[in-house]
C-alpha cells in the first residue's frame, strides 16, 4: 500500500512528506513551532502591540494632560488634520525636504561620487570614502550640532563667506528648510554612495569596453549602459533613502526645532509638537499614521518602478 502511495505521491512533490506513518501529528507540529514561540510572543508584544495601540489612539482624543477620560472620536483627528493649515504646511515641507535632500541630494550626489571614485586612484578612493562614511557614522544628534555650528550666524559658513567678502546671514533663520535639507544630504550621501559603488562594480567590464570601442562617450555610456544596468539598485536606494528621510527628526530638531515659526516643521516635528508639546496624543498619533501613509505612497511608486525595470 505504501508503495502505491509513494508512486502516486511522487508526482506532486508537496505530498511526499505526508506518506504513511511519518505524517506529522498536530502536537508534533506544535512542538516544532515552539522554539519560534518566544520570538513570536516578543514580536507580538513589543512590535505589533504598540503599533495596534498607536493605531487605536489615533481615533481617540487622548490628551497627556487636562483630561479626565479620553473617548473614541472616530475620524475627527483626520478631519482636523486636513483642515489644519499647519498640517498642510508640514506635508508640503516634508515633500520639499524629501525631494530636495533624498531624491536630488543624497541619491544623485551618491551616484556621482560612486562613479567618480570608480575612476579615482586607490588612495583618493580610500580617503574620500572614509570622509564621506564618517558623516554617515556620526550619531544624528552629533551631526545636527555640527551642522548647526556650520550654519549659525557665528558659524563656519559665514566665516568662509566673510573671507570671500560675501554677505553673511543666519542661514537657519533665512533659509531653514534648505539648511536642514543640506544637512540631510551631508549625512545621508554616504549610504547612497556605498550602494552605488557596489552596483557599479557589478557591471561587467566587457560591456563598458564594447561601448567604448563603438565610440560611445562618457555621458552616453552613463545613460545607455550604466544607468539601465543599475536600475534595481537605484530603486532600492531611492526607497530606503526616502523612507529614512521622511522620518528624520533629530537632525531638524537639533538645528531649528522646526522653526522659525514653522518654516522647517516637517511631519515628524509637527507630530511631536502636537503629541508632546500640545499634549494631544490622539491627534499626534493620527498624524503619525498619515506620515505612514505618505511613506507607503512613495514605496508604492518605487515598487512599481522596480517591477517594470526587471
Amino acid at each position, binding site marked *: 500500500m505504501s508503495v502505491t502511495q509513494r508512486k502516486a505521491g511522487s508526482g506532486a512533490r508537496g505530498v511526499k512528506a505526508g506518506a504513511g506513518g511519518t505524517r506529522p501529528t498536530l502536537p508534533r507540529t506544535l512542538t516544532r513551532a515552539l522554539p519560534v514561540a*518566544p520570538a513570536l*510572543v516578543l514580536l507580538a508584544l513589543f512590535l505589533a502591540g504598540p503599533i495596534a495601540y498607536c493605531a487605536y489612539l489615533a481615533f481617540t482624543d487622548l*490628551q497627556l494632560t*487636562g483630561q479626565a477620560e479620553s473617548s473614541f472620536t472616530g475620524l475627527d483627528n483626520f478631519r482636523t488634520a486636513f483642515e489644519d493649515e499647519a498640517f498642510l504646511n508640514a506635508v508640503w515641507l516634508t515633500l520639499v525636504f524629501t525631494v530636495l535632500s533624498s531624491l536630488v541630494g543624497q541619491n544623485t550626489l551618491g551616484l556621482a561620487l560612486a562613479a567618480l571614485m570608480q575612476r579615482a586612484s586607490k588612495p583618493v578612493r580610500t580617503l574620500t570614502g572614509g570622509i564621506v562614511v564618517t558623516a554617515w557614522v556620526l550619531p544624528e544628534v552629533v551631526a545636527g550640532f555640527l551642522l548647526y555650528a556650520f550654519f549659525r550666524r557665528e558659524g563656519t559658513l559665514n566665516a568662509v563667506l566673510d573671507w570671500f567678502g560675501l554677505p553673511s546671514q*543666519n542661514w537657519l533663520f533665512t533659509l531653514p528648510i534648505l539648511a536642514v535639507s543640506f544637512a540631510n544630504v551631508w549625512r545621508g550621501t554616504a549610504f547612497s554612495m556605498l550602494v552605488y559603488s557596489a552596483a557599479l562594480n557589478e557591471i561587467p567590464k566587457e560591456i563598458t569596453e564594447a561601448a567604448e570601442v563603438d565610440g560611445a562617450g562618457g555621458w552616453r555610456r552613463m545613460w545607455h549602459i550604466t544607468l539601465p544596468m543599475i536600475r534595481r539598485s537605484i530603486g532600492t536606494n531611492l526607497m530606503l533613502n526616502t523612507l529614512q528621510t521622511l522620518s528624520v527628526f533629530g537632525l531638524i530638531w537639533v538645528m531649528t526645532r522646526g*522653526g522659525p*515659526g514653522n518654516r522647517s516643521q516637517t511631519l515628524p516635528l509637527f507630530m511631536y509638537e502636537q503629541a508632546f508639546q500640545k499634549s494631544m496624543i490622539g491627534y499626534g498619533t493620527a498624524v503619525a499614521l498619515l506620515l505612514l501613509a505618505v511613506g507607503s505612497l512613495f514605496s508604492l511608486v518605487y515598487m512599481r518602478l522596480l517591477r517594470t525595470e526587471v
Partner: protein
Amino acid sequence: MRPNAAPLLLSTLLTATALSACGSDSGSDPDTVEISYKQSTDNSVRVMDEYLADVKEQFEKANPGKKVELVPIKAPDAEYYTKLQQMLRSPKTAPDLVYEDTFLINSDITSGYLKPLDPYLDKWEDWGEFVDTAKAAAKAQDGKTYGVPDGTDTRGLWFDKGIFKKAGLPVDWQPRTWDDLLDAARTIKEKVPGVTPLNVYTGKPAGEAATMQGFEMLLYGTATGATESPLYDTASEKWITGSQGFKDSLRFVETVFKEKLGPDVSDALDPNIATRVRGELLPEGKLGINLDGSWLPQDWLKGSGHEWPEWSEKLGLAYMPTQGGQAPGKVSMSGGWTWSIPSKAANPDLAFEFIKTMQTKANAQKWYIANSGIAVRTDVAEDPAYVKAQPGIKFFTDLVASTHYRPAYPAYPRVSTAVQEAMEGVTTGDSSVEEAARRYDEELKTATDNQVIRK
C-alpha cells in the same frame, strides 16, 4: 514525546526570562522616597540640586532606615512637563514626589495624576503659616488642595544702569506707559550701539516664559479694571477671543522686533534664551532693559555658577507700566511651583514627611533666599533676616499686592501655546497682528472645546 521535552523546556525558559525582564522592579521600595524635579539646563547652576541634597541629608538623619532618591529631569520647561506627565501615567514610573508648575497643576489634576493632600494638610500645623493666595495656587476646582507651594514670584523690569547712563537716561527710571518703555529702548538703540535695548520673551521656544513674562505682562496692563482677567471671563467661565487688548499686546511685540529693539529674532527664538539672558547678556552689560521675573538673582548668588554679587549696584528695578498709565499703574504676574504627590506614588506618606522637612521655617527660608523666591510663609516674610538677605526682595514683595494670577484652568497650557504661536508669528513677521490674532481665536476654540466668548 521524550525528545520534545528539550525544545519545550528551552522555549518556556526563554519566554519566561524575556517577559519577566520587563515586568519586574518598579523601584518602589517602601523605605525610599523618589523625588523628581527640574534640573537647570545650565550646567553651572545647581541651586535646587544643592538644596535638595541638604534636605535629603537632614531627612535621612531624622528618619533612620529611610532613603531619599533624587531623580532630576534635565530639560527646558516644556519638555520637563511632558516627561513628568509620561512618568505620572504609570505606577511603575511615577515618583513619590514631584515638582509641579502651578500653571499646569489644574491640567494635571484633571488628568488624575495627583493626589489630594487635604488629609495630610489638616494634621500639619505649619500649613497655617502659608498665605491664602499661595494656598489657593494649588487648589483645584473641586476645592481640594494638591500641592504645597515653595514660594511665589512677581515680575518687573530690570535695567542696566551703566547703559542708561551712556544713553542719557535717568538711573532711577520708572516708565509710566508702554510708550515710555519703547522710547527708552529707542534711545538706547540710538545712543548705545552694540547692546540689545529691550528683551521681551516671545514664541514657542521660550515656552511659558513667553506667555507669562512677555505677553501677559502686556495684556494685563491693557485691562481697564484692576482685577479682571483679559484672558478668561470668570462670569461666563469662558476664554476671551478677539479683544483689542490682545491685539495691542501683539502690536507691542511686533514693534519691539520690527524696530530691532529686541534681541535678534533668531536669538529670541532660541529655546535657551532665558538662560542666556541671565547668564550672559545681563552680567556682561549687553542688555538695556529686561522684562523678567523676580528670581533672576538666584543665578548670581555666591556659589551658584554665575557669581555676580555686584548686580544690585549695576541693575535697577522698575515696575512694568500699564498700557496708557491707567490705574493701578503697574503690572505684575505671579506663579510659582508646588510640591505634589502623584496619585500613583508608592510611598505617599513618606513623601509628605519629606515635604514637611523641606518646609520647616528654617529650610523654607533657606530656599526662598537661595531661589530668590518670594516667601509664602508669613513667619518667614516677617523675618528681618529674610528681608535683608537680598536686595530686590522688598521691591518684588511689594508687588504682591497688585499682582495677577494666571487663569490656570485645565485648558490653560494649550491656551498658552496658542499665545506663543501668535507671538512668534508677529516676531518673525510671518503674520500681521490681525492674522495672528485671528489664528489665536481659531486655536482658542479647539484648545478650550469652544468655550470662548467675544468681548
